Structure formats: C-alpha cells, structure tokens
C-alpha cells in the first residue's frame, strides 16, 4: 500500500495503482482520450496530465504510478490550462462539424471539450479534408475526424493480432492509416470492427445502412422482415440508457414492429438450425474419418481471418452458413414460398452486434435466388438504437411482445450463441444426446463459460473421450489455428469467436464496451438460457417440423444447397 495526497486528501491505494485509477477510487474522474481500460497505456493524448508537487513538468496520470508521499493536484490552474490548450489543439485540426458526425452527442472529444468549458478556440484551424475510405461494405474510415489517439492500432495489433493499422508519416502529417495508405478492403482487415468500437470519435464507424432500411420500410409492396441476433437482447438497452445486461427481448420486438417491420423474427431460430447441421456434420466427420478438428463458422470475422491468413485450414471449418445467412436463405425460399411473396419483394434486415456481418451478407455466394442477396441490410446494435431514437420511440415504456412465427420459437441453446463458448455448449447439448442416445444430466458446461482466452473440455461421445476448445479474439484464434495447421491440435471441435467475449462484445455493440460490460452481458445471456422452457436445439418443435416439412434431414440435399457454403483463399496484392 502507498500513501499519498490527492487534492489535499490523504489517500491510501494498492501498490502499482496509477494516479488516474487512484483518483477514480476517490471519486475524481480525470479526463482522458487515448486511455481505454482494456488496452495498453499509450500516453499519447496528454489530456490526463496532473501536477505533482516539486516537479516542473506535468505528468500523465494514466502512466504514472502512485509513490509514497506524492502530493498530486488534478485540477490546478496549470493543469486545467494544459488540458484546455491540448483540446483546442486537437479541435483546430479536426472536422468539427459535429452535427454531421455519427458520434454527435456520443463523442468523447465533444464531451471533453464541453467538460473543459471550451467556447472559443485560440488556435487557427489547420484542418484540411482528406479522402474518406468507403472501400468495403462494413467500415468507414474518416481520417478527418481522427484525433490520432492510437486506440484502434492497439486493439487491432494486441487484441486481434491482425495489425492492419499503423501510424504513418510524422508531425502534423502523421495519420493513422492502413498500411501504405491503402483502403481497408485491400488489406488483411477482417472487418471485426473492434477499432470502431474503441474509437473515441467518429473516425472509424460502421457503414450506416439505416437510410436503406427506412427506404425499404416505406416502399409500397415491399414485405420487410427482420431477424434479431442473440447478443442484441442483452445490449440494446445500453443504447437507450439502461445499464448493461438488461434483457430487453420483448421490447426489441415491439420497437421493430413500431418501426414498421412486417414480421419480427429471431436469429436464435437459425442458431438452433445451425446446431442441427453443424452437430450432424461433426458426428459425420468423427464417424467417417473426416477432417478434424472441425472449427465453427458462425463468426464472419473469423472466416475472413482464416481465408486470408490460414487458407490451409479451410477444410477444417464447418461448411455451415452462419445463423444470419441460414435465416436469409430460408426467408428468401421457404418463407417466401409459404407466404406467396416474390423474393424480389421481400426485404430481409438483420440486427447484428457485428460489422463483419455487413461484409458477410454481401458475399456473392450468399444468394439463394439469382442476383438476389439473402440478407439485404445488416444493422448494428448501434444503428438500431439510432433508428429507435429517430422515430422517437419511448423504449423504456413500451410493452414487450413475442417474436412472430414460424421463426420465433427458439431454445436456450441458441440464446447462448452470443457469448464465447456458447456455440460449443449448445452443440454439445445436442451432439451428446444424439450420439450417446441418453439425456444429458447437467446442461451447463461451466468450464466453457467465462472470459478466459482459450478454454477446453473433454466430453464422452460414444464411449470415446473427445477434447474440445473454445477461443475468442483473433490473437487466440491464431494460436489454435497454428496448431491445426501444424497438425498438433489435440481437439476434435473448436469454437472461434473473433471479438473479445464473443458476439456480446462485437464491433457493432454500444460504445464503451469494457470487460465489466462484457461480463454483465454474458451473465444476462445465461439468464435468458436458464429461463427458456426448451434448452436444447434438437428439441425445438419448429425445427423438427421444418425438417419434416421442407429440409428433410440435416446435411440432406436441400439443406446442403441452402444452409451450407464454401470458403476460398483470399490473398491481397
């Protein structure tokens, strides 16, 4: 423990506590910009400076550890002037047309300027516009709004190990940019969107598709349906001001109905379907000497990563489409037929926690009808929040309603897809019972839950012990993929989710996601699972009926055509 004085108050904090965290313990929130709780200390922005008695310069509180006897002032006139000056410097080189920015009223720079009371800027504007990167369907990089804090570089390099962003050039010409100033689409970017989720300003955002959806909703003769991913129900509340981990499933359905969607469905339904197909594929691979380990395919960021970095292991990846694309395929075929709607007049929207899903929907193989994408528009959690605010829906007060049928009856197994380990747990619930032909006593695979980077378990299948593994973040995926590539992987089945914590921590989730938020959302996901009357995918009666009525059997001809896909190596010049 160390004793020091912060603003004339004697405080005692644990060893190695930074001044920033020490002040927070005593209810002083020192403003920051480049600092982000889950990332490394960069100390680039210099906003969090404080004064230490006896030292001539100011020190950054994010990087300075408390020492015995320090006398710290967090808001002396010298400190406040420095923070104000630095913020003015940033604003003088920033596209400060705030109302035209997607982060308006949800921007860390704007709120900092507001807190510091900046009304006029003493410095001349040195901002000149640079081209905006709109090269891909998922992410927009607007260098004009970049404040060069380096968070995006950090998350891409250290959390994801993808490393496509770098500081280029020097002095005021320094830009944060993909290598060689290329557009993101020409690089090994997986579109996971973690950069967008940590960006303090509007420099990297998802490609905004809300206008397309508004247009479709108001187009006569257009039947517009929507699917909601498992992770949205525990995070959308945050967009509306509720604390993390609030389960708002029924309210989402009501809000989407108010927005004008003809029918509101649950991606959980096709998550159950994924388990049927993927589980059967696993059993098939194990019993017929197929390529093992099998790796999951629900996560489009992971698929992009594998196609670009690990083409050798593509045969290991399950051929199942993701739940989003299974939904799209069924909607544009089975559902359209059943409803008697021309697929051309059917518009499928999905609400996803993810930016890579926007890319996935635009893959050319994702068309069950000629020249017609199965999923027309993908909105992130944040974009749905925007639409709800645009319409003025009082989200907190609306009454919950149920999802529509047929794609509304789902199980607990599907709900947990949103958390790291969830797909594996859901698959095991089904595979265990199908193979062992006896009921699973304990449905909760606790060892596969939680935020540890790589988790493993052993399951007895048909009298044989099978090792499985679960990982999240692409850095961890790289470790397991290397093993598979080298032939040293001890596992039969591996779940990969590209974002930290799984989809609940996706790149399209509400801003400010940190470890604590992730844990709260995960906890809520397991609550959803616990409260479901059915908790195993193969027991979903609508899934059973769908196979009977339309798909015949898992891995059958029809499901092979609609629900499975292929991967190809992607190399960049």
């Amino acid at each position, binding site marked *: 423990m160390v004793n020091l004085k912060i603003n004339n108050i004697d405080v005692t904090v644990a060893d190695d506590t930074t001044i920033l965290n020490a002040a927070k313990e005593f209810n002083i929130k020192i403003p920051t910009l480049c600092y982000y709780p889950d990332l490394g200390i960069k100390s680039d922005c210099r906003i969090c400076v404080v004064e230490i008695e006896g030292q001539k310069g100011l020190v950054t509180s994010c990087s300075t550890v408390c020492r015995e006897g320090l006398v710290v002032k967090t808001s002396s006139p010298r400190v406040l002037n420095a923070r104000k000056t630095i913020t003015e410097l940033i604003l003088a080189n920033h596209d400060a047309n705030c109302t035209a920015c997607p982060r308006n009223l949800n921007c860390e720079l704007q709120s900092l300027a507001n807190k510091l009371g900046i009304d006029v800027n003493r410095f001349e504007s*040195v901002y000149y516009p640079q081209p905006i990167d709109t090269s891909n369907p998922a992410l927009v990089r607007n260098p004009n709004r970049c404040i060069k804090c380096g968070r995006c570089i950090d998350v891409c390099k250290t959390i994801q190990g993808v490393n496509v962003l770098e500081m280029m050039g*020097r002095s005021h010409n320094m830009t944060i940019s993909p290598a060689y100033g290329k557009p993101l689409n020409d690089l090994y970017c997986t579109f996971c969107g973690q950069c967008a989720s940590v960006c303090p300003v509007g420099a990297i955002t998802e490609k905004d598709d809300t206008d397309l959806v508004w247009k479709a909703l108001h187009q006569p003769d257009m039947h517009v349906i929507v699917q909601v991913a498992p992770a949205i129900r525990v995070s959308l509340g945050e967009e509306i001001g509720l604390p993390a981990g609030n389960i708002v499933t029924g309210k989402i359905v009501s809000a989407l109905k108010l927005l004008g969607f003809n029918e509101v469905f649950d991606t959980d339904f096709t998550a159950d379907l994924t388990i049927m197909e993927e589980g059967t594929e696993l059993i098939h691979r194990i019993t017929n000497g197929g390529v093992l380990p099998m790796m999951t395919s629900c996560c489009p960021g992971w698929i992009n990563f594998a196609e670009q970095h690990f083409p050798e292991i593509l045969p290991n990846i399950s051929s199942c489409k993701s739940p989003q694309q299974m939904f799209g395929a069924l909607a544009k075929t089975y559902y359209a037929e059943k409803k008697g709607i021309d697929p051309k007049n059917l518009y499928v929207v999905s609400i996803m926690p993810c930016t890579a899903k926007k890319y996935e929907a635009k893959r050319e193989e994702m068309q069950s009808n000629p020249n017609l994408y199965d999923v027309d528009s993908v909105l992130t959690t944040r974009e749905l929040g925007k639409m709800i605010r645009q319409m003025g829906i009082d989200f907190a007060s609306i009454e919950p309603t149920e999802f529509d049928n047929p794609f509304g009856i789902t199980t607990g197994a599907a709900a947990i897809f949103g958390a790291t380990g969830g797909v594996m747990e859901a698959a095991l619930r089904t595979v265990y019972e199908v193979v062992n032909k006896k009921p699973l006593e304990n449905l909760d695979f606790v060892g596969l839950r939680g935020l540890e980077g790589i988790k493993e378990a052993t399951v007895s299948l048909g009298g044989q012990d099978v090792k499985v593994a679960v990982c999240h973040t692409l850095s961890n995926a790289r470790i397991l993929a290397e093993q598979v590539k080298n032939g040293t992987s001890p596992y039969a089945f591996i779940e990969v989710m590209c974002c930290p914590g799984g989809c609940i921590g996706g790149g399209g989730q509400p801003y400010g996601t940190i470890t604590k938020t992730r844990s709260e959302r995960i906890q809520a996901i397991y609550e959803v699972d616990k409260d479901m009357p059915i908790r195993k995918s193969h027991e979903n009666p609508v899934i059973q009926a769908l196979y009977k009525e339309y798909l015949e059997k898992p891995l059958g001809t029809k499901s092979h055509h609609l629900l499975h896909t292929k991967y190809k190596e992607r190399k960049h010049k």
Partner: protein
Amino acid sequence: MIEMRLISKRCGVINPLSIDDYIKADGYKALQKALKTDTIKLIEEIHKSKLRGRGGAGFPVVTKVVALAKEINDVKYVICNADEGEPGNFKDRYLMENDPHQVIEGMLIVAYQTRATKGYIYIRGEYHHSHNTMQWALDEARKHNYLGENILNSGFDFDIEIRSGAGSYVCGEEFALIESIEGKPGRTRVKPPFPTTQGLFNKPTLINNVETFSNIPLIITIGGDQFAKIGTKSSTGTKLICLSGNIKNKGVFEVPFGVSIRDVIEKIGSGVENDRKLKMVQLGGACGPIIPDYMLDMLIDYDRFEEFESKTGAGAIIVIDDRFDIFDILTRVIRFFEHESCGKCTPCREGNQQLLKILERFQEHSATVKDLVSLESLARVMHQTSLCGLGQTAPTAIISTLRYFRDDYIDRLDSLEI
C-alpha cells in the same frame, strides 16, 4: 589559455585509422586496467567522478550503470548514441572521426562493469565519414582482440555493431533510437519502464552519448576523485563546445566546466565576425535558450543551465549578430521542430505548427496581444506536457526570448488593443 584538452587530446594528433597510433598514445590501457579490477570498484570510480551525461540531459552516469549492472538477464545492451542531430552540434562527429577507439574503449569498460553482452553505435544517417571511421576502428579492434570473444584473455565477451537511421532528428531520443534499431519508425515509448529495465528488444539497455563514453577511459586512468576535481561542484570534467554562427574562430573546443560563455566566445572564438555587435546567443542547439549579451557571463554548468527550464548540455554555442531578426531565427527553429516531430503526442504534433503560425504573424508585423498570450501559453503547455524531450524543448527558444527579448515581441504587435 582556457582550453583543456583531455578527451580531445589525441584529436588531430594521431591517425584515427591506426589502432597502433592509439595504443602508442596510451590507448586501451584503461581497458586493460579495468579488466583486472573488480567491477564494484570500477563503478565506484564512476560514482566518485560525478560524471553526467553529455548528450544534453545531464543525467548522472552512475545511476544508469548501477541500474544496468543490477539487472539479471542473459542479454544486456550498451548503446552509444551518435545520432548527433541537434543543429549546431558537431562534437560527437569530431570524437568519432578523430579518436574512434576512445569511444570503443569507453563502451567496453561500461559493458564490462555492467556485464553487458552486446553493443550498438547508432550513428546519424548523414554521418557517412563517421560511420566509415567507426567501422574501420571496430574491425581493427576486433583483429586485436579488443572486441569479440575472451577479450585480452579476460574471459569477457563483447562486440559492437553500427546501426544507422534515415536522418530523423527524434531518433536521438533514447526510446525513438531503440525503436529505430529494432527496425520500427522512430517514435518514443511511454516511460516507465526505462531502458535499463526494458530497452532494446525489451532487454535491459544502457544508452549514453559519444562524449560520455569518451570520458570513461579518462576516469579509469586518473581515478574518479581526480576527475571530480576538474570543473565545478555540480559539473565535473570538461565539455566539448561547438562554436558556430557569426564568430571568427569556429570549431570544437574542450574546456573545463565553469568557464564563462563570454570567455569562450571572446578568448577562443576571438569575438564576433567582422566586429559586428552580438545580438543573441543560442545555447545547446535548436532546442536551447536564446540569451542576450548581458547574460554571457554565465558559467557553463549543468545547474546554471537548468534555470532556463531547459536541459542544455549538448554543447553548442551559436553566436548571432545584430543583422538578424529574432523572429527569422525563431521561425527557422520552430519550422525545424515542426518538421521533426514524430507526431505521436498531441502537444508536439499540433503545437509546433500552431507556434509557427503565430510566429509568422510576428514576423509579418501583424500579431495581436492575443497572439502573444497564446504563444506564451502554448509554449509552456508544450514544454510541460510533451511526451519526450523533443516536444518539451522545442519551445525553449520562444520561452527564453519571451523573457529576455520581450521588447522585440511588443514592437511587433499590430496594436496594443486586447
């Protein structure tokens, strides 16, 4: 005569390309002595000498030596910072090109004291001749078993390699230099950890300037106590001074600490060129303060220099006569930093261009009182909040002239209205 040639005594006297010349002039004797001496005893000599870093910051050398010696690691580095990028400085080049083995000997002794395993000399990109001379000297030293395995049968292994940057000024900053050796763009890192715990390739690393290493053989030869008697109480030994600008006798001169700047200018430099009037003197280099004639009686001493809120030990004295406009000098200085900032931290990245904009208004006689206030405030904020020495010292010339040449600023105001 106020010159005192101790570490430059061989410069211009011996053939720098001849190791035999160096050995005949008592070269490598300090190393031989060191190899037979207990390392604790050697470190004590450095401690007694009170030697401070000659690169500019004046950090006590023994602190770094002890820190590196304490680290337990299979790999420890010693780096010689020869990225002499500070405008007006050419002393490291002088030492490397005239007495390269002295630098090597100094590095070897420090490496032996600290049980370092590998050395690097990081030479400024533009210094081709220094690079070639040092490379020749390293090869010769290796041939004579002063480098390599089992040096002089002592059981001590050490070798040195040269690395070079692409000419970026900031690579003289220790962490930017380390990043550059690692093959990355020259940008500094957050401290702590300091290089002695996590430096080059994340291994413990000691970095000193060429002149600092050149002092080590002398200290071992004459002893730390004897060394400490030279110079002043707070600044021991001698200092190489780079005298340039509008002065008759330009060049590198070695003087003991404690002589006055005026003596250096008048007695060594023989006064201002063409007998013009001296207007100002910039000390240390572009990052140093600019002072008027009436301050020249100040002694060359680390502690005295710190009064300028700037660390100014690099050793340049740039004399500027009365033909020059202070704002022409300042815009040139700030343009230099605006070009050389790495762009990593906000105050330096954005601040230098804003300083320049305001200074240009002073240059054009169109500045306002607001400009004066903004300039002063911004210069101080940059000095107090920048991440590395570059941004911290870039505004030193402004801060010092605002103090000593304030009338020049007031004269340039467009109007005195607020």
